[in-house]
């Protein structure tokens, strides 16, 4: 190959390498957030508590994976249920969270996640009753958890009765269908991106239950995108 050809090859490869580095750095600095972002920062006056309303549904009922379990969230502006697990919230703000749990439960793999952690008062209310720990080997068991590990938050979502016949199978679910109502509050802390997830291996049909919806963003995990207001 001529000197000119060699130089051209080296230059092209160099530019390709530089391009790859730029793409990787850009992706690292601005990680993608599939499913969009539901913005809760403007849903109330600055400094006031933010209200998040979410659902856990045994099967979403539509889309590419209609049988997958998922979280849904109520958009605070449009008041429509959306399939989105990246939620933008203000920093250092009280977050009041309500989760309507429509899925069934069972004993969980690690009962540690039956304990309410990181919430105000280290407790939650289950259908109006305050509890700090739920024994998944009793009652309806636990269906899912809402956990933000880097904030130290974990809340068990008690399952609906295993004998219920008309369990919701298509999201969003009506409150007329069997469900459990879980409420808790926490303080959002400093700005940053905090992954949240379910700690119950609820990916039915996947080895150890941690595949499918447990390993795909926008189903049983997402981000709390905490921003300075």
């Amino acid at each position: 190959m001529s000197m000119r050809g060699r130089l051209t090859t080296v230059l092209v490869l160099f530019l390709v390498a530089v391009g790859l580095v730029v793409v990787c750095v850009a992706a690292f600095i601005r990680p993608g957030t599939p499913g969009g972002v539901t913005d809760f920062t403007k849903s109330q006056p600055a400094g006031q508590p933010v209200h998040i309303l979410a659902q856990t549904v045994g099967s979403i009922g539509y889309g590419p994976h209609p049988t997958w379990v998922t979280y849904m969230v109520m958009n605070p502006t449009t008041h429509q249920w959306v399939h989105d697990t990246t939620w933008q919230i203000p920093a250092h703000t009280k977050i009041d969270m309500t989760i309507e749990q429509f899925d069934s439960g069972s004993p969980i793999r690690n009962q540690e996640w039956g304990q309410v952690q990181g919430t105000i008062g280290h407790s939650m209310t289950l259908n109006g009753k305050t509890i700090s720990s739920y024994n998944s080997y009793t009652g309806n068991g636990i269906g899912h958890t809402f956990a933000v590990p880097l904030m130290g938050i974990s809340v068990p979502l008690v399952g609906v009765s295993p004998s219920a016949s008309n369990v919701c199978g298509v999201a969003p679910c009506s409150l007329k269908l069997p469900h459990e109502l879980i409420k808790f509050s926490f303080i959002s802390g400093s700005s940053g991106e905090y992954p949240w997830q379910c700690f119950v291996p609820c990916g039915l049909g996947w080895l150890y239950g941690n595949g499918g919806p447990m390993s795909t963003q926008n189903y049983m995990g997402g981000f709390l995108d905490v921003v300075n207001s």
Partner: protein
Amino acid sequence: MMTSEDPMTNEPRHLRRMTNIWVIASVVVDVLFWFLVGPHMAPGRLTSTAGADQTDINILMVIALPVLLAVWVFLGYSIRVWSSKKNGPESVGGPAAAGHKGVITAWIVTTTVIVLGLAIFGTIALIADHGSGGGEGPNPIWAPAGATAAETAALTKGDSWSPSSGKVLVVQVIAQQWKFTYRYPQFGGFETTQLMLPADTSIAFNVTSLDVIHSFWAYQLGVKADANPQQNNVAFTDTKGPGDFTVRCSELCGLWHGAMYDFGKVVSASDFESWATSTESANATNTSYLAPFAWTYVPDANGAAGGYYIDANVTPYSKSELYGAKQ
């Protein structure tokens, strides 16, 4: 009287020149490294294993730097003295480029001594430091004094630990997608997401997993042990002064592997005891729901739902879902 030229060829004594440069540079660089850089090398000295790691790394660097300098000095000297010049002789090839028996012998002997020396040094360090913070499996052969007794007693309800007991503190590390949790069998077997350790204490980490393979890497503690399902992987360390450390999963384990980290603290023994007893009390209700303490737990292989703990006294909803639990 020594001269700087070879009387036979009237050439400068190149080997002597290079050797002198190399020896002086090596001494200077090694001394500077040992005293200025060495004390700041990772992973610090928060524990015996971390301190030993730091010492080992510094020793390796003190050995490696002269080797590096030898290459650089030879290269630089060669470029300076023997680079081809216009109208000069051919710089390579010919009889002058043939192998020199003495140089070859010296190279082989030197590299062999270095490699064998490092192998012996590494083996001694591994044994003397009780596995150097690495997982030794369920039956460690380099356990520190008292560790085996503490491990055995940890399975017995009622065993306890206090700063004055002088016992090894047994900590169980439970990995799961995607978080480490910790059980303290000498404090009623409570489980928590916080890793707290007492200073100046021997620690026995018992590492296991509830699902896939993870790896418990407490970087500043100098401890790294794979977390395998249904395996108990034991690693030892002795904590020194109080300090903070980071725990990371170092085995690619799924979607949130990158977020599977947390922070721990080494605190004074009395502060640790206060924290442990208060946490034991605060978690008492949930601890009563946990399965009896065991080294490993058999996972539910059937997907969703739990039934994880093998000895959990439960009435299963479905036998197929509760593989491993009492039926």
